[in-house]
């Protein structure tokens, strides 16, 4: 059975700061990383392979520099990496991204499981996983926090909800998205790093995947960004310093003026 992990290269938002004067993003030193949730997807794919065998393919759509992220996936233990790269893919929203990824997956053989992260930390949509599933007409389960059992036929897993978790069972092939709780990603081994250096990153373009250009990239995206802006700053609040008895009293008094009474069961 073959396992596909979809990974996305994203700007490391740890380093994205806002310039308070111009209210713009400071990009200096913003590195590209593999979307953190996708690291858990890679790890889980490797664990499944170690348990039931198979091949792990890392798949990503993006500009040529994404090859670097795919090499990282290989250094961790992925067997193969495919980069979907073409100017025609640029500007894709989640609809066009999922169509493109689905088109690539359709080209592969004997796929039992497709793993993705819960969401990407740049777009924060989480729509690509279910989107790929729908394009491929496969079932999907999002927000998996644990795989209890998996075989070439079937998966039993735990899906995190707002107030607990669901236990679910489904037949393969299926698409799943994972949350951070699922595992602790490994670090690349020395041998992995060597393998990554030498590995061939397979690249596919739009023509190879065989999707018409009207359906991909900006052209194939039903949504369009009208504008991007930085959110208004909440504008420094009131800060109390001094003896706890006083600062706490001042805080509670302020809140009360604002109509909020902590501890009084409900606020007005």
């Amino acid at each position: 059975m073959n396992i596909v992990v979809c990974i996305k290269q994203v700007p490391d938002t740890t380093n994205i700061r806002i310039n308070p004067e111009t209210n713009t993003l400071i990009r200096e030193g913003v590195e590209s990383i593999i979307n953190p949730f996708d690291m858990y997807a890679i790890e889980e794919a490797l664990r499944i392979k170690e348990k039931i065998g198979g091949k792990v393919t890392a798949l990503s759509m993006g500009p040529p520099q994404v090859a670097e992220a795919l090499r990282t996936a290989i250094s961790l233990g992925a067997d193969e990496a495919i980069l979907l790269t073409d100017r025609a893919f640029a500007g894709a929203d989640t609809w066009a991204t999922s169509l493109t990824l689905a088109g690539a997956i359709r080209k592969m053989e004997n796929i039992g499981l497709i793993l993705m992260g819960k969401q990407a930390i740049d777009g924060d949509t989480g729509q690509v996983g279910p989107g790929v599933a729908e394009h491929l007409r496969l079932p999907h389960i999002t927000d998996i926090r644990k795989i209890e059992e998996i075989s070439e036929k079937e998966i039993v897993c735990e899906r995190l909800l707002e107030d607990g978790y669901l236990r679910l069972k489904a037949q393969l092939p299926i698409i799943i998205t994972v949350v951070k709780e699922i595992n602790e990603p490994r670090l690349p081994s020395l041998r992995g790093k060597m393998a990554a250096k030498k590995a061939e990153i397979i690249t596919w373009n739009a023509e190879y995947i065989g999707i018409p250009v009207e359906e991909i990239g900006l052209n194939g995206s039903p949504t369009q960004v009208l504008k991007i802006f930085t959110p208004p700053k909440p504008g420094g609040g009131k800060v109390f310093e001094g003896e706890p008895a006083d600062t706490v009293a001042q805080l509670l008094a302020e809140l009360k003026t604002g109509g909020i009474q902590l501890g009084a069961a409900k606020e007005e």
Partner: protein
Amino acid sequence: MSGIQVIEHKCVGCKKCQKVCPYDAIDMVEKLAVINLDKCTLCGACVDACPFEAIVIEKATGEKQDISSYSGICVYAEHRNGVLSSVVKEIIGVARRLKESLDKPIYAIVVGQDVKRIAEEILEYGVDEAWVREDPRLGDYAEDVQADVVAAILQEMRPEIFLGGGTIIGRSLLPRVAVRLKTGLTADCTELTIDEETKNLRQTRPAFGGNIMATILTTAHRPQMATVRHKVMPEAKKVEKPQGRIVPADYIPVPKPRIEVLGFVPEEGQTVNLVEADIIVSAGRGIQDPKNVGLIAKLANAVGGALGASRAVVDAGWVPYSHQVGQTGKTVNPVVYIACGISGAIQHLAGMKSSDIIIAINRDANAPIFDVAHYGIVGNLFDVVPELIKQIEK
């Protein structure tokens, strides 16, 4: 072909575009913006930032969908255990506001097992038509099946707008529906308005962990779909004389489920659901030792709130992951958020910044949490928190 272009005679080399580009894809060459196409994702940030309209993105549009036959606003009525999810009342509130600009009916889609009562309840909030499909195979969590049924109903109903909750279920179901209907879906919106000129839905949402906001349009496809972030919009109030009616959609086929629900295990030790909570008290690394989680939990108890945590505390294993607030945890929007010993790293802020009132307790007056806090107490939390509990309980 679509593409991005710098109109050279309009560009003055002001670098405004370079500053806003989240992908570092713009270079200045001899006072002219040059787009690095290997990095550019056509996100459009630069187009908006350019004061001289010197950057354009062109989009080749294929065959046009006839969008004029779509009308009305439809709401996905999420529910569980026979109870309507509170986010639905918020979305109906949004729909009623949008109706003022569009003057078109509000529809709802209610699918599930025994959902007549939910459909009737929904009408009380001012929905004009609740389309109902009942079937045992459409039970709680059967999103896979529900997606097919919802898409089929939408094809009949043809609303111009379709909204669902930005909940785990909503954010799993709506993307499938959007792909099926070949239309756009905007995730986790915090603001929805109608463009008075074009009557398009302007969908505003945070991205990049809340560092930027984007306004998104779906101009050429219908319905315009969005999920709506929970607890941002006010809930609709019941109307005095509900006028709506129930429309049975029994003829819509229900496919065979592909996912079997083995059971639901509720969160232990959490009396209040973090995402629904009106008050959240969160512990950060400042609590210094796992034994001090109890102190923060005690404060949470005293104010009738839920316990949250920063990633540092969750990674240390002091509090379970389900309590983690932030980019890799949960996004919350309570009325009051109390951060105890949390520095306010950007990833943490991403999950709680839009809380109505943020209160920070931190001994470091320079901690970034104070930049977003409405109220702050500079001090040792081991003194402040017990004092707070004492004064609240007084």
